């Protein structure tokens, strides 16, 4: 049995309460609906509030103006955000980007970008996927060519989280000397960013095309750093999934207790009751998985990647199936646009793809296990 503890400390419990209170105030359903229809997709005032609370710099070291918190704290925050379907570029800008920069450890870039990210002044994103797969390709079709004063990128990226309006793009591209991460600033020549029409309007995505676009190479070992950053960011994603799954169980059981048919609350029928219990098992298991992988990353457990692979597959499936069952428990009202159940299913189906689908994670699990 592993020594890592998944019990929340007093500080983590307080953090959870702070974020839960913030979500209750800033991300109630009508606000989620408003931002789904809004151009930017998030509320800059809330973003500033997240910065002021130290949540944008949560995982950024103190030397770069952050709180230097661990994966366990990140999971606590992400769980509450997932529960509330917060419309904000948190995963891309406050999780994936900092993890990537810290992994590459380019001193100049870290010193320039991380303090501004923590302060909410720079909202950056990472462009790694290309057409056909949400995982980064081993050999990106996007190419980087050396120029007189830097690099020039040509190619196309898709599924770019929160790409529209980002203040900087970190782009995964291949050059003669290998795969690297290149920074491109908005307004650069040949850069075109267009919004993708997404099923989940609470999580924005974009397509990026680059045509001889000027870029800066960040650090050296970009490819390995990207994979590691995606794994670390996945700790936040599974926590979001767990939070969303828990919220679905809450909605369903609340409804099953109060909806009467045949003179009885529908939750008194075993058909509904047993469905709710099975949903609870998935939700609690997802929550335990999220807490476990966070603790495993903080403790640098040797098995953390196989654990993460299982957790990503499990949490993706759990969120999708529980969100789907939520619609079923709600019956007719759950089939209406106005009811929030479908918003969770849309988020669940997106979350089950953005860092690789469940089958990809399962295959990764077996591959690592058979090699060890």
């Amino acid at each position, binding site marked *: 049995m592993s020594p890592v503890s*998944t019990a929340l400390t007093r500080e983590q419990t307080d953090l959870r309460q702070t974020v839960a209170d913030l979500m209750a105030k800033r991300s109630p359903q009508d606000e989620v609906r408003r931002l789904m229809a809004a151009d930017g997709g998030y509320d800059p005032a809330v973003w500033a509030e997240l910065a002021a609370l130290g949540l944008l710099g949560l995982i950024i070291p103190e030397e770069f103006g952050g709180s230097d918190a661990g994966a366990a704290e990140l999971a606590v925050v992400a769980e509450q955000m997932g529960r509330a379907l917060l419309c904000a570029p948190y995963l891309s800008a406050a999780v994936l980007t900092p993890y990537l920069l810290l992994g590459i450890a380019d001193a100049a870039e870290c010193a320039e970008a991380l303090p501004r990210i923590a302060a909410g002044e720079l909202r950056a994103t990472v462009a790694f996927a290309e057409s056909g797969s949400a995982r980064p390709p081993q050999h990106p079709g996007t190419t980087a060519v050396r120029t007189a004063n830097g690099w020039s990128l040509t190619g196309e990226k898709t599924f770019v989280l929160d790409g529209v309006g980002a203040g900087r793009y970190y782009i995964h591209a291949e050059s003669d000397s290998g795969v690297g991460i290149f920074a491109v600033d908005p307004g650069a020549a040949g850069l075109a960013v267009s919004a993708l029409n997404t099923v989940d309007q609470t999580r924005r995505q974009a397509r990026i095309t680059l045509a001889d676009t000027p870029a800066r190479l960040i650090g050296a070992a970009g490819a390995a750093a990207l994979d590691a950053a995606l794994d670390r960011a996945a700790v936040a994603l599974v926590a979001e999934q767990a939070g969303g799954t828990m919220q679905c169980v809450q909605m369903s059981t609340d409804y099953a207790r109060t909806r009467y048919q045949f003179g009885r609350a529908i939750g*008194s029928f075993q058909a509904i*009751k047993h469905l709710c*219990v099975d949903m*609870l*098992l998935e939700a*609690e298991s997802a929550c335990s998985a999220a807490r476990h992988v966070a603790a495993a990353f903080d403790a640098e457990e040797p098995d953390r990647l196989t654990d993460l692979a*299982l957790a990503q597959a499990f949490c993706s499936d759990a969120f999708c199936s529980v969100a789907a069952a939520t619609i079923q428990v709600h019956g007719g009202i759950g089939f209406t646009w106005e009811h929030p159940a479908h918003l969770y299913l849309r988020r669940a189906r997106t979350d089950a793809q953005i860092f690789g689908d469940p089958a990809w994670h399962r295959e990764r*699990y*077996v591959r690592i296990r058979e090699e060890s």
Partner: protein
Amino acid sequence: MTDDDIRTEVRQWLAQNWDPGADRTGWTQRVFDAGWSAPSWEPEWGGRGLSDAQSRIVAAEFAAVGAYGTGADRADMLACTIHDLGTEEQKLRLIGPSVRGETRWCLLYSEPGAGSDLAGLRTRADRDGDDWVVNGQKVWTSFAAHADYGLLVARTDWDAAKHKGISFFIFPMRQAGVEVRPIHQITGESEFNEVFITDARVPHANLVGEPGGGWAVLQLALAHERRLMGDLARTSKSSGDLKPDSNSLIGMARAAGRLSDSHIRQEIAVVEGYAAVNRWNTRRAKNTADKAEAATLLSLGKIAMSRILHETARVQTEIAGGETMLAGPDHPVGDAITFRALNAYFTSIGGGTDQIQRNIVGERILGLPKEPEPYRDTAFRDLPH
């Protein structure tokens, strides 16, 4: 006394007293006299008034040197029930011999017609002077052949409502009119028995609680049993037999030449995912200070384990393919997989079916309403059956 004091004291006591070659009766008497038999109980019942957690520390120290005789306050259902609800006379007469292992017990609860709906039991006990005369049939009784007593629930009032006409007895097993027959299980094994009771007698002095008050006594006895099952499930050592053999799925697929099959690879990871989240649930339950969180997680453990066992057997069946049609020592792989596929029902039916467990979790954890009970107040003899 602090936990460390207890640990030191029991360790010293064992160092001075434990002798693996000691005669059983002498040893258990010594454990009893020292207050280690049931550490959380009072000295007169083989205890020393320790906390529940400290009692587990004592058990761990005994286990560490291979000594036996402690833990009756958690594992001896007869003694636990009498300790909580018995009369002084019953305590004096029954607790000592039971916790010292001089008498053995079995459970006479389920009946062929009363499984999930245990309160529908029809074994009857009729008052006759200082005795009750018992007639009926009990089922799924372990260790019946060697038991001195059975913890028996029987109907003593047929005009009362279902739950209100039941009484709880400490029933002497070694008498004419008690016939024990092993049950032949689908796995081929026989761990359980049927017990046929014909005009057997139990003294009125062995009635626990009031006549008609047996359901409440039973709930307490079952709570002790659930606590014990929870203990067993949580200690990795003793839950070895509950653990699915999932570590070998990759090895099994490799041996069968199926490890390159992407369908099999996916299935393996699905099942190992179920096993992993169950481990993480258990650990979270153990670590948390939030009692409601722990209770929720533990209540889901049985359903989770059923899924792991059934799904593991299903994937093993896919890996081994046609071999699973064959049985016996010449076909050990297929034979073992079939055993697991069948034995998985031990968990999904035994100790209350998964469906009953879902009712319990739905009602107690999720707060969903119970099914309507139209016969709640109807005299038992008027129930449809």
